C-alpha cells in the first residue's frame, strides 16, 4: 500500500480536527480498509485511527435502548449485547472469523455500508439511530445505496442506539469464502410493528422488505409471508449466485429468521 501519515487521537474532538486535513480518512478496525489500501483502491494522505478513543467503546443499556460505541469490536458486541439484544449479539458473533471479530468494529462496518455486510441489516431492521459527532441520523435515512451513507466528509459515527425489540433474529446464508452474507435477513418485532431488513441481495445495498413487514405485523409466522416474493430485478448477480437465486433467498432467509425469532 502507499504510505500515509498515521495519527491516533484520544478524543472525538481531536479526531474531528485531524480529519479536517487534506485527504484524511478515518480508520476503525481496518479489516476492510487496510485490504482495500493494499490493493491501492484507496490511498489517503492521513489515516486517523479511532481505536484509541475510550468514549467510543462499549455496550450500555439505557432503558429500552442498547447503546453501542462505534469503536466497539464485533467480539465485544457478541459478548456484552447477548443479555440485552440476543439477535444483535448473534449477528456480531457470525461476522468474519474470531480474529476479525477482535478487531473490526460496528462503526466501521456501517460507515462502509458494504452491500453484503451484516450490521446494516440490524441497524435498519431495528430502526436504530446512528449518532455522529454533530447529529443523530435515523437508520432509514442513513443507508443510501452501495457504499453510500448520509455521512459528510470528516463526520464520525460515535455510537449506534438500538431500540430493543420484543423478538428478533438474523438469518444469514453464508458465503463461505468471504464470510459475508450471500443474503441475510434481520427481522425485528416491536409494539409498533415488524421491521424486516435484507442485506447481501440488492445492488442498492441493504433495504426494507415492506410487504413482508406488513404481513408479519398482522401475523408473526413464516406462513404469513409464504406467498410473498421479491423481484429478481435489481438483485446482485455474481459467480456465487444469480439475481433469481438471491431473490429466492430473500424469502427463505426471512422465513427462517421469523421461525428463529425470540
Amino acid at each position: 500500500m502507499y504510505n500515509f501519515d498515521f495519527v491516533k487521537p484520544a478524543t472525538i474532538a481531536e479526531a474531528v480536527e485531524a480529519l479536517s486535513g487534506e485527504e484524511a480518512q478515518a480508520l476503525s478496525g481496518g479489516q476492510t480498509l487496510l485490504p482495500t489500501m493494499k490493493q491501492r483502491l484507496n490511498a489517503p494522505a492521513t489515516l486517523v485511527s479511532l481505536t484509541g478513543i475510550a468514549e467510543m467503546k462499549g455496550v450500555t443499556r439505557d432503558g429500552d435502548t442498547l447503546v453501542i460505541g462505534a469503536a466497539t469490536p464485533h467480539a465485544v458486541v457478541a459478548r456484552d449485547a447477548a443479555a440485552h439484544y440476543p439477535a444483535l449479539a448473534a449477528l456480531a458473533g457470525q461476522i468474519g472469523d474470531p480474529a476479525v471479530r477482535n478487531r473490526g468494529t460496528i462503526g466501521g462496518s456501517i460507515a462502509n455500508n458494504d452491500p453484503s455486510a451484516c450490521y446494516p441489516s440490524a441497524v435498519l431492521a431495528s430502526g436504530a439511530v446512528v449518532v455522529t459527532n454533530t447529529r443523530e441520523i435515523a437508520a432509514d435515512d442513513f443507508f443510501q445505496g452501495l457504499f453510500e451513507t448520509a455521512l459528510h466528509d470528516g463526520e464520525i459515527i460515535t455510537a449506534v442506539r438500538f431500540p430493543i425489540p420484543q423478538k428478533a433474529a438474523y438469518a444469514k446464508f453464508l458465503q463461505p469464502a468471504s464470510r459475508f452474507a450471500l443474503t441475510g435477513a434481520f427481522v425485528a418485532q416491536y409494539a409498533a410493528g415488524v421491521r424486516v431488513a435484507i442485506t447481501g441481495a440488492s445492488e442498492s445495498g441493504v433495504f426494507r422488505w415492506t410487504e413482508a413487514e406488513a404481513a408479519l405485523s398482522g401475523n408473526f409466522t413464516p406462513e404469513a409471508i409464504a406467498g410473498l416474493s421479491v423481484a429478481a430485478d435489481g438483485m446482485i448477480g455474481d459467480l456465487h449466485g444469480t439475481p433469481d437465486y438471491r431473490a429466492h433467498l430473500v424469502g427463505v432467509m426471512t422465513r427462517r429468521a421469523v421461525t428463529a425469532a425470540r
Partner: protein
Amino acid sequence: MTKVTLTVNGRSMSGEAEGRTLLSSFLRDTLGLTGTHVGCDTSQCGACVVHVDGLAMKSCTVLAQDVNGASVTTIEGMANADGSLGRVQQAFQDHHGLQCGFCTPGMVMSAAALLAENPKPTEAEIRHHLEGNICRCTGYHNIVKAVLAASGQDVSGLGVAAE
C-alpha cells in the same frame, strides 16, 4: 518513521515504523521474529495470527503504529521457559497436526486463544473457531485432534487420518 515499542513475548522491543507498516512486517522484518508467517496478506488465511493484549488478531491487517505500546504474543512465545515445546505445540507434534507447517504458527495462536476462553471445547467449537485459519495441505482433521488433545480431552473417538 515513528518509533514503535511493543512488549513482545514479555520483552520490550522497539523499532521504526512507517504509517503503512503492518504488524506482521514489523515483527518479521524489523524485530526479526520470522515465526509469524504471512500467507495471503489479504486477511483470509490466518497464518499471521498473533495475540495483541491477549486477543487473537491477523497481524497482516493491523498497523504497527496502531498497536504501539501493546503486549504481543507470537509463536516464539509459545514454548516453555526451558525451551521445550508448549502444550499446544506438543499436541500438534504428537497428533501430526501439521504437514508442510506453513499455517502452523497461526493455527497454534488461534488454538491457544480458544483454549484461553474455552478450556474444554467440543470438536464442533474447535472447527468453528478455526474458520479463519486455512491449511493449504487441508490437514484439518489432525489439527482439530491436536487442539482437542491440548485441552486434555480424549481424542480416541476421533477418526484416524494420515497417521
